[in-house]
Protein backbone atom coordinates (compact mmCIF):
# COMPACT_ATOMS: atom_id res chain seq x y z
CA UNK A 1 0.00 0.00 0.00
CA UNK A 2 1.46 3.36 -1.03
CA UNK A 3 1.01 6.87 0.32
CA UNK A 4 -1.28 7.68 -2.61
CA UNK A 5 -3.48 4.74 -1.64
CA UNK A 6 -3.55 5.70 2.02
CA UNK A 7 -4.15 9.46 1.88
CA UNK A 8 -7.69 9.30 0.40
CA UNK A 9 -8.62 6.76 3.09
CA UNK A 10 -7.31 8.70 6.09
CA UNK A 11 -10.64 10.38 6.86
CA UNK A 12 -12.53 7.12 6.77
CA UNK A 13 -9.79 5.47 8.80
CA UNK A 14 -9.96 8.12 11.50
CA UNK A 15 -13.76 7.75 11.52
CA UNK A 16 -13.38 4.00 12.00
CA UNK A 17 -15.33 3.41 8.82
CA UNK A 18 -12.85 1.17 7.04
CA UNK A 19 -13.37 -2.55 6.86
CA UNK A 20 -11.14 -4.58 9.14
CA UNK A 21 -8.63 -5.60 6.48
CA UNK A 22 -8.40 -2.11 4.93
CA UNK A 23 -8.16 -0.50 8.33
CA UNK A 24 -5.39 -2.87 9.27
CA UNK A 25 -3.53 -2.11 6.04
CA UNK A 26 -3.78 1.65 6.60
CA UNK A 27 -2.69 1.22 10.22
CA UNK A 28 0.26 -0.86 9.08
CA UNK A 29 1.26 1.78 6.55
CA UNK A 30 1.01 4.54 9.17
CA UNK A 31 3.33 2.63 11.46
CA UNK A 32 6.04 2.72 8.84
CA UNK A 33 5.42 6.04 7.09
CA UNK A 34 6.13 9.17 9.07
CA UNK A 35 4.76 11.48 6.37
CA UNK A 36 1.36 9.80 6.38
CA UNK A 37 1.43 9.60 10.16
CA UNK A 38 2.03 13.33 10.32
CA UNK A 39 -0.83 13.92 7.90
CA UNK A 40 -3.08 11.69 9.99
CA UNK A 41 -2.06 13.50 13.17
CA UNK A 42 -2.78 16.85 11.54
CA UNK A 43 -6.20 15.70 10.41
CA UNK A 44 -6.96 14.22 13.81
CA UNK A 45 -5.90 17.45 15.49
CA UNK A 46 -8.12 19.45 13.15
CA UNK A 47 -11.06 17.20 13.90
CA UNK A 48 -10.43 17.47 17.63
CA UNK A 49 -10.42 21.22 17.24
CA UNK A 50 -13.71 21.15 15.36
CA UNK A 51 -15.26 18.92 17.98
CA UNK A 52 -14.18 21.37 20.65
CA UNK A 53 -16.15 24.17 19.01
CA UNK A 54 -19.30 25.12 20.92
CA UNK A 55 -22.53 23.67 19.59
CA UNK A 56 -24.76 26.08 17.74
CA UNK A 57 -27.78 27.07 19.76
CA UNK A 58 -30.14 28.34 17.09
CA UNK A 59 -32.22 31.27 18.36
CA UNK A 60 -35.99 31.03 18.54
CA UNK A 61 -36.38 33.90 16.10
CA UNK A 62 -34.66 31.89 13.40
CA UNK A 63 -37.05 28.97 13.81
CA UNK A 64 -39.98 31.37 13.75
CA UNK A 65 -38.78 32.72 10.43
CA UNK A 66 -38.35 29.19 9.07
CA UNK A 67 -41.90 28.29 10.09
CA UNK A 68 -43.23 31.51 8.57
CA UNK A 69 -41.51 30.73 5.28
CA UNK A 70 -42.92 27.21 5.28
CA UNK A 71 -46.40 28.45 6.08
CA UNK A 72 -46.18 30.95 3.25
CA UNK A 73 -45.12 28.21 0.89
CA UNK A 74 -48.04 26.00 2.01
CA UNK A 75 -50.53 28.82 1.47
CA UNK A 76 -49.15 29.41 -1.99
CA UNK A 77 -49.35 25.71 -2.68
CA UNK A 78 -52.99 25.57 -1.56
CA UNK A 79 -53.89 28.36 -3.94
CA UNK A 80 -52.62 26.43 -6.95
CA UNK A 81 -55.06 24.63 -9.29
CA UNK A 82 -55.84 21.03 -8.38
CA UNK A 83 -54.16 19.65 -11.53
CA UNK A 84 -50.91 21.38 -10.63
CA UNK A 85 -50.97 19.98 -7.05
CA UNK A 86 -51.62 16.51 -8.49
CA UNK A 87 -48.72 16.92 -10.84
CA UNK A 88 -46.57 17.98 -7.92
CA UNK A 89 -47.13 14.61 -6.24
CA UNK A 90 -45.43 12.97 -9.24
CA UNK A 91 -42.68 15.48 -9.81
CA UNK A 92 -39.64 16.75 -7.96
CA UNK A 93 -40.83 19.30 -5.50
CA UNK A 94 -38.13 21.77 -6.38
CA UNK A 95 -39.37 21.85 -9.96
CA UNK A 96 -43.10 22.06 -9.21
CA UNK A 97 -42.96 24.33 -6.15
CA UNK A 98 -40.35 26.95 -6.89
CA UNK A 99 -41.53 29.20 -4.05
CA UNK A 100 -41.01 26.42 -1.55
CA UNK A 101 -37.54 25.84 -2.97
CA UNK A 102 -36.88 29.55 -2.79
CA UNK A 103 -37.99 29.61 0.82
CA UNK A 104 -35.74 26.64 1.64
CA UNK A 105 -32.84 28.34 -0.04
CA UNK A 106 -33.46 31.53 1.87
CA UNK A 107 -33.57 29.60 5.12
CA UNK A 108 -30.31 27.88 4.25
CA UNK A 109 -28.68 31.23 3.55
CA UNK A 110 -30.00 32.65 6.82
CA UNK A 111 -28.65 29.67 8.74
CA UNK A 112 -25.24 29.97 7.07
CA UNK A 113 -24.99 33.70 7.69
CA UNK A 114 -26.13 33.31 11.26
CA UNK A 115 -23.69 30.44 11.86
CA UNK A 116 -20.83 32.45 10.36
CA UNK A 117 -21.64 35.39 12.56
CA UNK A 118 -21.97 33.13 15.59
CA UNK A 119 -18.59 31.52 15.08
CA UNK A 120 -16.91 34.89 14.55
CA UNK A 121 -18.61 36.85 17.31
CA UNK A 122 -15.94 36.17 19.97
CA UNK A 123 -13.05 37.43 17.96
CA UNK A 124 -12.27 40.97 19.01
CA UNK A 125 -9.56 41.21 16.44
CA UNK A 126 -9.21 38.42 13.93
CA UNK A 127 -5.79 37.12 13.08
CA UNK A 128 -4.12 38.52 10.02
CA UNK A 129 -1.00 38.74 8.05
CA UNK A 130 1.11 41.53 9.42
CA UNK A 131 1.18 43.14 6.03
CA UNK A 132 -2.58 43.57 6.27
CA UNK A 133 -2.50 44.99 9.75
CA UNK A 134 -2.88 48.68 10.26
CA UNK A 135 -1.41 50.69 13.07
CA UNK A 136 -4.37 50.23 15.40
CA UNK A 137 -4.36 46.49 15.27
CA UNK A 138 -7.44 46.35 13.05
CA UNK A 139 -7.16 43.56 10.59
CA UNK A 140 -8.75 42.73 7.29
CA UNK A 141 -8.04 39.15 6.39
CA UNK A 142 -10.06 36.13 7.51
CA UNK A 143 -9.22 33.99 10.50
CA UNK A 144 -6.03 32.11 10.29
CA UNK A 145 -6.04 28.34 10.50
CA UNK A 146 -3.03 26.04 10.87
CA UNK A 147 -1.63 25.04 7.53
CA UNK A 148 -2.34 21.40 6.75
CA UNK A 149 0.65 19.19 6.30
CA UNK A 150 1.42 18.26 2.74
CA UNK A 151 3.08 15.03 3.68
CA UNK A 152 6.33 15.77 1.86
CA UNK A 153 9.15 15.19 4.31
CA UNK A 154 11.28 17.89 2.68
CA UNK A 155 8.53 20.47 2.84
CA UNK A 156 8.80 23.18 5.43
CA UNK A 157 5.09 23.00 6.29
CA UNK A 158 5.38 19.27 6.94
CA UNK A 159 8.49 19.85 9.01
CA UNK A 160 6.73 22.50 11.10
CA UNK A 161 3.73 20.27 11.64
CA UNK A 162 6.07 17.54 12.84
CA UNK A 163 7.97 19.76 15.30
CA UNK A 164 5.91 18.93 18.41
CA UNK A 165 6.33 15.22 17.83
CA UNK A 166 10.02 15.61 17.01
CA UNK A 167 10.53 17.39 20.31
CA UNK A 168 8.58 14.68 22.12
CA UNK A 169 10.81 12.06 20.53
CA UNK A 170 13.91 13.88 21.79
CA UNK A 171 12.44 14.17 25.26
CA UNK A 172 11.55 10.48 25.12
CA UNK A 173 15.12 9.54 24.24
CA UNK A 174 16.53 11.61 27.08
CA UNK A 175 13.94 10.21 29.45
CA UNK A 176 14.73 6.63 28.51
CA UNK A 177 18.42 7.19 29.21
CA UNK A 178 17.65 8.79 32.54
CA UNK A 179 15.28 6.01 33.54
CA UNK A 180 18.04 3.49 32.82
CA UNK A 181 20.46 5.49 34.99
CA UNK A 182 17.90 5.86 37.74
CA UNK A 183 17.15 2.15 37.69
CA UNK A 184 20.83 1.48 38.27
CA UNK A 185 20.88 3.90 41.20
CA UNK A 186 17.63 2.46 42.47
CA UNK A 187 19.29 -0.84 43.30
CA UNK A 188 21.29 0.94 45.99
CA UNK A 189 18.24 2.42 47.72
CA UNK A 190 16.23 0.92 50.60
CA UNK A 191 13.09 -0.94 49.65
CA UNK A 192 10.72 1.78 50.83
CA UNK A 193 12.53 4.33 48.72
CA UNK A 194 12.40 2.02 45.73
CA UNK A 195 8.64 1.70 46.09
CA UNK A 196 8.23 5.45 46.30
CA UNK A 197 10.33 5.85 43.20
CA UNK A 198 8.41 3.20 41.27
CA UNK A 199 5.07 4.76 42.15
CA UNK A 200 6.18 8.26 41.25
CA UNK A 201 7.78 7.10 38.02
CA UNK A 202 4.60 5.32 36.98
CA UNK A 203 2.53 8.39 37.83
CA UNK A 204 4.71 10.74 35.81
CA UNK A 205 4.89 8.35 32.87
CA UNK A 206 1.11 8.16 32.91
CA UNK A 207 0.98 11.94 32.80
CA UNK A 208 3.04 11.88 29.63
CA UNK A 209 0.84 9.31 27.94
CA UNK A 210 -2.35 11.16 28.75
CA UNK A 211 -1.04 14.61 27.83
CA UNK A 212 -1.90 16.06 24.43
CA UNK A 213 0.94 16.15 21.95
CA UNK A 214 2.72 19.48 22.03
CA UNK A 215 3.30 21.79 24.95
CA UNK A 216 1.37 19.72 27.48
CA UNK A 217 3.33 16.59 26.67
CA UNK A 218 6.65 18.40 26.62
CA UNK A 219 5.88 19.82 30.03
CA UNK A 220 5.05 16.35 31.32
CA UNK A 221 8.36 15.09 29.94
CA UNK A 222 10.25 17.92 31.62
CA UNK A 223 8.59 17.13 34.93
CA UNK A 224 9.70 13.53 34.65
CA UNK A 225 13.21 14.48 33.55
CA UNK A 226 13.68 16.80 36.49
CA UNK A 227 12.36 14.17 38.86
CA UNK A 228 14.77 11.61 37.42
CA UNK A 229 17.68 14.04 37.63
CA UNK A 230 16.99 14.65 41.30
CA UNK A 231 16.48 10.98 41.98
CA UNK A 232 19.63 9.99 40.13
CA UNK A 233 21.99 12.63 41.49
CA UNK A 234 20.83 12.81 45.09
CA UNK A 235 18.36 9.98 45.66
CA UNK A 236 15.58 12.48 46.12
CA UNK A 237 12.51 10.46 45.29
CA UNK A 238 9.90 11.28 47.87
CA UNK A 239 8.48 14.66 46.97
CA UNK A 240 5.15 14.53 45.28
CA UNK A 241 4.78 18.09 44.11
CA UNK A 242 6.06 19.50 40.86
CA UNK A 243 8.27 22.18 42.32
CA UNK A 244 10.77 23.47 39.92
CA UNK A 245 8.95 22.04 36.95
CA UNK A 246 10.33 23.94 33.97
Amino acid at each position, binding site marked *: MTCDDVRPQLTAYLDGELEDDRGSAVRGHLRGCEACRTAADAEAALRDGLRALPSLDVPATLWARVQAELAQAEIADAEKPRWRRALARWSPSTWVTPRFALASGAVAVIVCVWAWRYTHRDL*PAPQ*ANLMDTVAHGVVKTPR*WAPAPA*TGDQNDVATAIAALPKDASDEYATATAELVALAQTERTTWPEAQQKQFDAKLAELQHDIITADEGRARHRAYRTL*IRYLERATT*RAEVAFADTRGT*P
Partner: protein
Amino acid sequence: MKLTFIATTLGLLAAPALAEPSRADVVERSRVEVQPAGRAFTQLSIENPLGDIRVEGYDGSAIQIETHKHAPDDDTLDRLRVALVPSADGIVRITTSVDAGKELRPVARGAVRVDIVIRAPRKARVDAAVSSGKLEIENLDAGGELDSASGSISAKNVSGELMTHSLSGPTSLTQVFGSVDAATVSSDMDLDSINGEKLVASANKGRIAGRRVRSRDVELTTVDGKIVLEAETALHGHLVVSSLHGDIDVHLRRHGAINVRARGGKVDLGQPANLIEHTAGWTVATLGRSSDPMASVELMSKYGAVSLAVIQ
Protein backbone atom coordinates in the same frame (compact mmCIF):
# COMPACT_ATOMS: atom_id res chain seq x y z
CA MET B 1 6.94 49.94 4.51
CA LYS B 2 7.81 47.09 2.27
CA LEU B 3 11.20 46.68 0.73
CA THR B 4 12.11 43.85 -1.56
CA PHE B 5 15.64 43.05 -2.55
CA ILE B 6 16.41 40.50 -5.22
CA ALA B 7 19.98 39.26 -5.22
CA THR B 8 21.43 39.13 -8.69
CA THR B 9 22.79 36.03 -10.28
CA LEU B 10 26.02 37.90 -10.82
CA GLY B 11 26.35 38.50 -7.12
CA LEU B 12 25.81 34.85 -6.33
CA LEU B 13 28.38 33.81 -8.91
CA ALA B 14 30.90 36.31 -7.60
CA ALA B 15 30.87 34.88 -4.12
CA PRO B 16 30.01 31.21 -4.34
CA ALA B 17 32.22 30.32 -1.43
CA LEU B 18 30.34 32.65 0.86
CA ALA B 19 26.89 31.56 -0.20
CA GLU B 20 25.25 29.21 2.26
CA PRO B 21 23.33 26.28 0.80
CA SER B 22 20.11 27.66 2.21
CA ARG B 23 20.76 31.25 1.23
CA ALA B 24 17.51 33.02 0.43
CA ASP B 25 17.30 35.17 -2.65
CA VAL B 26 14.37 37.38 -1.81
CA VAL B 27 14.05 39.39 1.36
CA GLU B 28 11.04 41.29 2.58
CA ARG B 29 11.09 43.57 5.58
CA SER B 30 7.98 44.95 7.14
CA ARG B 31 7.17 46.97 10.22
CA VAL B 32 3.96 47.39 12.08
CA GLU B 33 3.02 49.11 15.29
CA VAL B 34 0.12 47.90 17.37
CA GLN B 35 -1.39 50.41 19.75
CA PRO B 36 -3.23 49.22 22.86
CA ALA B 37 -6.97 49.58 22.53
CA GLY B 38 -7.82 51.02 25.94
CA ARG B 39 -6.01 48.47 28.05
CA ALA B 40 -2.23 48.17 28.21
CA PHE B 41 -0.60 45.11 26.72
CA THR B 42 0.05 42.61 29.48
CA GLN B 43 1.44 39.67 27.59
CA LEU B 44 3.15 38.91 24.34
CA SER B 45 2.99 35.38 23.05
CA ILE B 46 5.19 34.55 20.06
CA GLU B 47 5.73 31.30 18.20
CA ASN B 48 8.21 31.35 15.37
CA PRO B 49 9.32 27.95 14.10
CA LEU B 50 10.83 29.63 11.03
CA GLY B 51 13.61 31.75 12.52
CA ASP B 52 14.76 34.08 15.28
CA ILE B 53 12.84 36.06 17.85
CA ARG B 54 14.23 39.10 19.58
CA VAL B 55 12.16 41.09 22.06
CA GLU B 56 13.41 44.32 23.58
CA GLY B 57 11.51 46.08 26.33
CA TYR B 58 11.09 49.83 26.22
CA ASP B 59 9.12 52.50 28.04
CA GLY B 60 6.42 52.98 25.40
CA SER B 61 2.95 51.43 25.33
CA ALA B 62 2.78 50.18 21.74
CA ILE B 63 4.23 46.99 20.35
CA GLN B 64 6.50 47.52 17.39
CA ILE B 65 7.05 44.47 15.23
CA GLU B 66 9.63 44.15 12.51
CA THR B 67 9.70 41.03 10.37
CA HIS B 68 12.33 39.84 7.95
CA LYS B 69 11.18 37.19 5.53
CA HIS B 70 13.64 35.29 3.38
CA ALA B 71 12.67 33.00 0.51
CA PRO B 72 14.15 31.70 -2.73
CA ASP B 73 11.57 33.48 -4.89
CA ASP B 74 8.59 35.82 -4.75
CA ASP B 75 5.98 33.07 -4.91
CA THR B 76 7.49 31.31 -1.93
CA LEU B 77 7.87 34.60 -0.10
CA ASP B 78 4.13 35.17 -0.48
CA ARG B 79 3.50 31.89 1.29
CA LEU B 80 5.32 32.98 4.45
CA ARG B 81 2.79 34.23 6.96
CA VAL B 82 3.16 36.26 10.09
CA ALA B 83 -0.13 36.37 11.92
CA LEU B 84 -1.06 38.75 14.68
CA VAL B 85 -3.93 38.51 17.15
CA PRO B 86 -4.35 41.33 19.63
CA SER B 87 -7.06 40.40 22.11
CA ALA B 88 -9.18 42.48 24.40
CA ASP B 89 -7.53 41.07 27.53
CA GLY B 90 -4.19 42.69 26.70
CA ILE B 91 -2.54 39.63 25.17
CA VAL B 92 -0.94 39.81 21.74
CA ARG B 93 -0.21 36.60 19.90
CA ILE B 94 2.16 36.36 16.97
CA THR B 95 2.72 33.20 14.98
CA THR B 96 4.52 32.37 11.78
CA SER B 97 3.58 29.70 9.26
CA VAL B 98 3.91 28.65 5.67
CA ASP B 99 0.94 28.26 3.36
CA ALA B 100 0.69 24.65 2.30
CA GLY B 101 -1.51 22.61 0.06
CA LYS B 102 -1.44 19.89 -2.53
CA GLU B 103 -1.44 22.40 -5.33
CA LEU B 104 1.64 24.16 -3.93
CA ARG B 105 5.09 22.82 -4.53
CA PRO B 106 7.13 21.75 -1.48
CA VAL B 107 9.63 24.20 -0.03
CA ALA B 108 12.75 22.96 1.70
CA ARG B 109 12.91 24.04 5.31
CA GLY B 110 16.32 25.64 5.00
CA ALA B 111 15.18 27.72 2.02
CA VAL B 112 12.87 30.01 3.96
CA ARG B 113 13.26 32.04 7.09
CA VAL B 114 11.29 34.55 9.12
CA ASP B 115 13.04 36.62 11.78
CA ILE B 116 11.05 38.78 14.17
CA VAL B 117 12.30 41.77 16.14
CA ILE B 118 9.86 43.27 18.61
CA ARG B 119 9.93 46.30 20.87
CA ALA B 120 7.42 45.74 23.62
CA PRO B 121 6.36 47.60 26.76
CA ARG B 122 8.65 46.63 29.62
CA LYS B 123 5.75 45.53 31.77
CA ALA B 124 4.53 42.94 29.28
CA ARG B 125 5.25 39.31 30.06
CA VAL B 126 6.85 37.51 27.12
CA ASP B 127 6.18 33.90 26.24
CA ALA B 128 8.15 32.89 23.18
CA ALA B 129 9.04 29.71 21.35
CA VAL B 130 11.47 28.98 18.53
CA SER B 131 12.66 25.81 16.89
CA SER B 132 16.21 26.25 15.63
CA GLY B 133 16.36 30.01 15.64
CA LYS B 134 17.79 32.29 18.30
CA LEU B 135 15.51 33.51 21.04
CA GLU B 136 16.60 36.70 22.78
CA ILE B 137 14.82 38.93 25.26
CA GLU B 138 16.19 42.03 26.92
CA ASN B 139 15.11 44.83 29.27
CA LEU B 140 11.81 43.36 30.39
CA ASP B 141 10.14 43.59 33.78
CA ALA B 142 7.46 40.91 33.87
CA GLY B 143 9.44 37.77 33.16
CA GLY B 144 8.14 35.10 30.85
CA GLU B 145 8.60 31.64 29.47
CA LEU B 146 11.10 30.84 26.72
CA ASP B 147 11.11 27.61 24.78
CA SER B 148 13.55 26.33 22.19
CA ALA B 149 14.29 23.04 20.48
CA SER B 150 17.81 23.54 19.16
CA GLY B 151 18.11 27.31 19.05
CA SER B 152 19.90 29.33 21.67
CA ILE B 153 18.08 31.17 24.44
CA SER B 154 19.36 34.46 25.80
CA ALA B 155 17.80 36.70 28.43
CA LYS B 156 19.41 39.88 29.66
CA ASN B 157 18.26 42.44 32.19
CA VAL B 158 14.98 40.74 32.95
CA SER B 159 12.89 41.10 36.09
CA GLY B 160 10.09 38.84 37.20
CA GLU B 161 9.70 35.11 37.13
CA LEU B 162 11.61 33.59 34.24
CA MET B 163 11.23 30.08 32.95
CA THR B 164 13.33 28.66 30.13
CA HIS B 165 13.57 25.25 28.56
CA SER B 166 15.65 24.00 25.69
CA LEU B 167 16.34 20.62 24.20
CA SER B 168 19.73 21.18 22.63
CA GLY B 169 20.18 24.92 22.38
CA PRO B 170 22.50 26.71 24.82
CA THR B 171 20.94 28.98 27.44
CA SER B 172 22.43 32.24 28.67
CA LEU B 173 20.77 34.27 31.41
CA THR B 174 22.33 37.56 32.50
CA GLN B 175 21.10 40.10 35.03
CA VAL B 176 17.91 38.44 36.08
CA PHE B 177 16.05 39.90 39.03
CA GLY B 178 13.51 37.29 40.01
CA SER B 179 13.05 33.58 40.39
CA VAL B 180 14.51 31.49 37.60
CA ASP B 181 13.68 28.02 36.45
CA ALA B 182 15.89 26.92 33.59
CA ALA B 183 16.33 23.50 32.01
CA THR B 184 18.24 22.08 29.09
CA VAL B 185 18.46 18.50 27.96
CA SER B 186 21.74 18.33 26.08
CA SER B 187 23.24 21.79 26.06
CA ASP B 188 25.17 24.18 28.28
CA MET B 189 23.83 26.87 30.53
CA ASP B 190 25.48 30.15 31.52
CA LEU B 191 24.13 32.15 34.43
CA ASP B 192 25.46 35.57 35.30
CA SER B 193 24.17 37.99 37.93
CA ILE B 194 21.07 36.11 39.00
CA ASN B 195 19.23 37.76 41.88
CA GLY B 196 15.98 36.42 43.17
CA GLU B 197 14.22 34.25 45.64
CA LYS B 198 14.91 31.03 43.82
CA LEU B 199 17.15 29.65 41.11
CA VAL B 200 16.50 26.15 39.85
CA ALA B 201 18.61 25.08 36.89
CA SER B 202 19.27 21.70 35.36
CA ALA B 203 21.24 20.45 32.40
CA ASN B 204 20.99 16.78 31.73
CA LYS B 205 23.98 16.43 29.42
CA GLY B 206 25.52 19.85 29.59
CA ARG B 207 27.55 22.01 31.91
CA ILE B 208 26.28 24.79 34.12
CA ALA B 209 28.43 27.85 34.74
CA GLY B 210 27.17 30.42 37.23
CA ARG B 211 28.74 33.75 38.18
CA ARG B 212 27.54 36.37 40.62
CA VAL B 213 24.62 34.21 41.69
CA ARG B 214 22.84 35.79 44.64
CA SER B 215 19.54 33.96 44.74
CA ARG B 216 18.38 32.93 48.17
CA ASP B 217 17.69 29.31 47.31
CA VAL B 218 19.78 27.73 44.59
CA GLU B 219 19.47 24.28 43.08
CA LEU B 220 21.76 23.25 40.23
CA THR B 221 21.70 19.77 38.78
CA THR B 222 23.46 17.98 35.95
CA VAL B 223 23.78 14.33 35.14
CA ASP B 224 26.91 14.40 32.98
CA GLY B 225 28.11 17.98 32.90
CA LYS B 226 30.44 19.96 35.12
CA ILE B 227 29.06 22.62 37.43
CA VAL B 228 31.09 25.74 38.16
CA LEU B 229 29.49 28.25 40.47
CA GLU B 230 30.56 31.53 41.98
CA ALA B 231 27.84 32.61 44.37
CA GLU B 232 26.93 34.43 47.53
CA THR B 233 25.07 32.68 50.26
CA ALA B 234 22.09 34.42 51.77
CA LEU B 235 21.41 34.14 55.48
CA HIS B 236 19.24 31.07 56.00
CA GLY B 237 19.49 30.36 52.31
CA HIS B 238 19.93 26.94 50.72
CA LEU B 239 22.39 25.94 48.06
CA VAL B 240 22.13 22.48 46.54
CA VAL B 241 24.50 21.49 43.76
CA SER B 242 24.43 17.94 42.50
CA SER B 243 25.65 15.84 39.63
CA LEU B 244 26.02 12.19 38.83
CA HIS B 245 29.19 12.20 36.72
CA GLY B 246 30.19 15.86 36.57
CA ASP B 247 32.71 17.67 38.76
CA ILE B 248 31.45 20.39 41.07
CA ASP B 249 33.49 23.50 41.72
CA VAL B 250 31.90 26.11 43.97
CA HIS B 251 33.33 29.45 45.05
CA LEU B 252 31.21 30.91 47.78
CA ARG B 253 31.15 34.36 49.27
CA ARG B 254 29.52 33.83 52.60
CA HIS B 255 27.56 36.11 54.89
CA GLY B 256 27.38 34.53 58.31
CA ALA B 257 28.04 30.88 58.88
CA ILE B 258 27.38 28.00 56.54
CA ASN B 259 26.72 24.40 57.19
CA VAL B 260 28.23 22.27 54.45
CA ARG B 261 27.48 18.70 53.47
CA ALA B 262 29.52 17.30 50.65
CA ARG B 263 29.89 13.94 49.01
CA GLY B 264 31.79 12.92 45.91
CA GLY B 265 34.52 10.86 44.32
CA LYS B 266 36.88 13.37 45.88
CA VAL B 267 35.91 16.11 48.33
CA ASP B 268 37.89 19.28 49.00
CA LEU B 269 36.37 21.84 51.31
CA GLY B 270 39.38 24.12 51.05
CA GLN B 271 39.81 26.14 54.20
CA PRO B 272 39.87 24.85 57.75
CA ALA B 273 36.44 24.42 59.17
CA ASN B 274 35.29 24.54 62.74
CA LEU B 275 34.03 21.04 62.64
CA ILE B 276 34.45 18.31 60.09
CA GLU B 277 32.75 14.98 60.35
CA HIS B 278 32.63 12.04 58.01
CA THR B 279 29.30 10.27 58.21
CA ALA B 280 27.96 7.64 55.81
CA GLY B 281 29.99 8.95 52.91
CA TRP B 282 29.23 12.59 53.67
CA THR B 283 31.72 15.20 54.75
CA VAL B 284 29.98 17.64 57.07
CA ALA B 285 31.50 20.93 58.14
CA THR B 286 30.56 24.23 59.68
CA LEU B 287 32.30 27.32 58.37
CA GLY B 288 32.10 30.43 60.52
CA ARG B 289 30.69 30.77 64.00
CA SER B 290 27.86 28.37 64.60
CA SER B 291 26.07 31.04 66.62
CA ASP B 292 25.68 33.20 63.50
CA PRO B 293 22.69 32.87 61.15
CA MET B 294 23.43 29.83 59.09
CA ALA B 295 22.99 28.97 55.44
CA SER B 296 23.05 25.39 54.27
CA VAL B 297 25.15 24.13 51.40
CA GLU B 298 24.87 20.65 49.93
CA LEU B 299 27.29 19.50 47.25
CA MET B 300 27.28 16.04 45.79
CA SER B 301 28.62 14.21 42.79
CA LYS B 302 28.58 10.47 42.86
CA TYR B 303 31.40 9.97 40.37
CA GLY B 304 32.91 13.44 40.08
CA ALA B 305 35.10 15.61 42.30
CA VAL B 306 33.59 18.16 44.67
CA SER B 307 35.45 21.29 45.72
CA LEU B 308 34.39 24.29 47.72
CA ALA B 309 36.30 27.53 48.24
CA VAL B 310 34.89 30.10 50.62
CA ILE B 311 35.66 33.77 50.13
CA GLN B 312 35.14 35.82 53.28
